[in-house]
């Protein structure tokens, strides 16, 4: 039992190796602020464009408008100094009938985009945690 406790403490210690972020820094800061979110937006759109599960849903989408709104949304949910000017998530995805598979593909592509920008796993997880509640508003609508 003592050995099991020791293993768990080791795991906890490993988990504590996350890069230190200055106190009070928002998730937005951890993502690299305005420049970081812009880079993430570009990298994510690049992933979506090359993913056959996702790309067709962008067929009639004004990509420059999407780019601006995506960056605004990421900025807003990560406590950055932005106002999201787009439609609600429910409105924005109405009629698209996004399947579970497509939603998860969007998550996988966003994760790949973050990894390509060397965003640390804990920061990735924190952003995904804030985006996850959106799922119920956008799938099968």
């Amino acid at each position, binding site marked *: 039992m003592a050995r*099991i406790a020791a*293993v*768990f403490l080791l*795991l*906890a210690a*490993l*988990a*504590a190796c*996350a890069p230190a972020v200055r106190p009070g820094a928002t998730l937005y800061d951890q993502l690299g602020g305005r420049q970081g979110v812009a880079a993430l937006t570009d990298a994510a759109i690049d992933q979506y464009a090359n993913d056959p599960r996702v790309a067709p849903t962008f067929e009639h989408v004004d990509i420059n408008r999407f780019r601006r709104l995506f960056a605004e949304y990421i900025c807003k949910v990560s406590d950055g100094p932005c106002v999201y000017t787009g439609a609600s998530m429910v409105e924005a995805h109405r009629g698209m009938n996004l*399947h*579970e*598979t*497509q939603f*998860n*593909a969007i*998550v*996988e592509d966003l*994760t790949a985009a973050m990894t390509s920008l060397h965003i*640390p*796993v*804990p*920061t990735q*997880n*924190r952003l*995904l*945690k804030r985006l*996850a*509640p959106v*799922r*119920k508003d956008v799938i099968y609508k």
Partner: protein
Amino acid sequence: MKADMAVAQKADSQGHSFGLWLGGVLLLLAFAQIAHAGDGRLIATGGVTQVEGSAGGGLVPWAVLAGYGTRDELGGTVFRTQLQLPDYRLDSYGFAFAIHNRLEFSLARQRFDLGTLGKAIGMPGAALRQNVLGAKLRLAGDLVYGDLPQISIGVQRKHDLDFTIPRLVGARHASGTDVYVSATHLELAALDGYDLLWNVTLRSSNANQFGLLGFGGDRGNRRWLAEGSLAILFNPRWAAGLEYRQKPDHLNFAREDNAADAFLAWFPSKRLALVAACVNLGSVAGLERQRGVYLSLQGSF
């Protein structure tokens, strides 16, 4: 003569095991081809295959269903597991498939090589084999999304193929049914930004040593058992964790201990998962300190 029989039995069981294994793989491949097997769920969210063939951790079944199929898709897995203990060896293999992330069916064969004990009773190479037929129904929730954990109920119908020794040591039945309920959830960014997975399983069982030593005994029959798992995900492909599983202790001839393991799991792709673990079964059929290395390979379709 006894030794001859044991050797013959060993050869037979190995031939049989390979046939079952190959059959399972071919069945799953055919199933994947004709039935729109999908991989729409996120990597690692199908877990691995626990020792009785259900989707879960190593010792404990979880609420997750085998493979990566969503509500629109089918999914399936094949697995092969080996646990080398100081005096025994456990081999387990089988396959599972899941329908629309709702209902899972699984079939596993376990072979418990009696090792030291086999030699001691004049049957070198003797083994205890059992089949486990499993079904699991997801009742509610989702592993990743939403605040509710994923909750499933399951059954594992077990049948001993070699009941002579279990009967001699006091087991009452060659077959038994485990019933369990599991709750499993991934807590995103829960530990310093890392995802944590927890699982709680309550099982009603009368299986001695997973059923390998039969069902029911001279000291009791069915009882409720608690099982739990806790894991941290270093990233979507690597996880490490701990498991604990209560076991009954219903045979007078030898004490049965609870089981625990510490594991490391790697998901190089949605097709493949590898698990290495240290498993402690405690005392098994009179031989103490049965702790050893567990290796498991899972293919997903």
